[in-house]
């Protein structure tokens, strides 16, 4: 713990010293960034931009992740449909979604929905692939036990397939949520008048290095908080697992 704090302090000190040597207008400084964030918080500017970016990320994540979670459950019993869809989903997974931002803007406008579309397209494929892997990894002996006990397909999904795929779903959420926030900010960089990405873009455009770095710092902080929340939810939902340290499930 302390070693990390000392390392962080050392990095900040080097940055501060570098700023004194090269001039704060080029690389700013930790003190200036913290001051800037404080000013933004006090004036309420930061909260508005943070809220906008988080709203885009949350909406996009839900619109992408919920179908990404449900579709593999439905396809479990529709082998033909799954086989038909497979190559298209592979292509969709491989497409660089960021390259579509200009198109999303044309289709959904420069408001919130073009960012939501980008985030949704990123989240969907991540959650879909991981959940599909989890659905395939379900122990057939557990399914057989449940069927003999009289379970219907809906009951199998709810009581066997979904719980055993949960570690895989978490694996995807751990990647998709930070990417959702980052993706929303990236989309804002290209065209927006609100949000942290806009704040970075407009600050840098005015050569306000301190402002741009302060916005990046705020973005980093949100991602870190999200990771903590996901880890806490995982610990809660997966309390049944033998040990918590390896958070990535082994693929069968």
């Amino acid at each position, binding site marked *: 713990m302390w070693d990390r704090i000392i390392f962080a302090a050392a990095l900040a000190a080097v940055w501060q010293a570098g700023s004194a040597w090269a001039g704060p207008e080029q690389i700013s400084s930790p003190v200036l960034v913290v001051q800037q964030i404080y000013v933004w918080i006090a004036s309420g500017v930061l909260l508005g931009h943070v809220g906008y970016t988080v709203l885009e990320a949350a909406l996009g994540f839900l619109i992408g992740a919920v179908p990404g979670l449900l579709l593999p459950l439905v396809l479990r019993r529709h082998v033909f449909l799954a086989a038909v869809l497979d190559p298209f989903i592979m292509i969709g997974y491989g497409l660089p979604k960021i390259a579509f931002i200009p198109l999303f803007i044309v289709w959904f406008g420069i408001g919130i929905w073009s960012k939501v579309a980008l985030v949704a397209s990123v989240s969907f494929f991540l959650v879909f692939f991981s959940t599909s892997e989890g659905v395939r990894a379900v122990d057939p002996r557990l399914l057989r036990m449940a069927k003999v006990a009289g379970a219907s397909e809906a009951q199998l999904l709810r009581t066997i397939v979904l719980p055993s795929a949960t570690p895989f779903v978490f694996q995807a959420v751990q990647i998709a949520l930070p990417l959702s926030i980052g993706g929303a900010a990236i989309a804002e960089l290209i065209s927006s008048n609100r949000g942290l990405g806009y704040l970075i873009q407009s600050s840098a455009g005015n050569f306000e290095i301190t402002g741009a770095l302060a916005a990046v710092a705020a973005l980093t902080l949100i991602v870190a908080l999200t990771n903590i929340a996901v880890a806490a939810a995982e610990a809660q939902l997966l309390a*049944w697992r033998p040990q918590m340290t390896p958070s990535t499930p082994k693929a069968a």
Partner: protein
Amino acid sequence: MTCEPVLEARYLGRFFSDRATQSERWIIKGLSFALHEGEFVTLVGPSGSGKSTLLNLLAQIDRPSAGEIRLHGEVISAPSRPGQSAGANGRIGYIMQDDNLLPWRTLRANVEYPLQIQGRLDASFRKRVDELIAAVGLNGFENHYPHELSGGMRKRASIIRTLAYDPPVILMDEPFGALDAESRLHIQEDLVRLWELGRKTILFVTHDITEAIALGDRTLTLTKSPACIRGEHLIDISRPRSVDSLVTEPNYPGIFSRIRAEV
């Protein structure tokens, strides 16, 4: 016995297509037997003799290629009969080789699982679950997850999970194979005690002749592939039997060697 059998297999057959030789390989052929009310029947066969295939057919997980299966006289499974349901709507229980406990449920929630699925989990069944947990010495472990239990405890939990919902017929597929000798002995005695309390009709498959004699009223033997019933042996050793001192019973050596000669 003259009364109608509880579970009956008539000329049961199951083949799998062999893609290489374009032929049908019969695992089971012309297999017939009947289980009567409250009987504990053990089934011994050489390994690879299709014991698990047979139990999968009886449990309605698999469909026969020939013959039929009757439960209380009603045909529940035949090659052309559509709409069979696994476990015959909770009337046939199946305790498999692995305990198959759900790792995300506590012991108690695992035992209650079939009742919950069947929508029958009420106060009286909860009480029954409590009694069964106590009967196999698992009280105090109700809220433990499967990975926190020993192999023997997990096996006990898987047995009472099936007993809890009270199916009239219970199939058991070498359930104690993976246990050490000590816990095996305890759990065999637990099983007989539970059976004597409720008098379920049980078909218990094993490759261990001593186990077959210790537990059964009757022992059936299987031929090697394709499997059908080779012999039937009445186990005329009075109950309660002590599994531990079974070998000292005067009838034991005779029964053992007769079964041994057939498998």
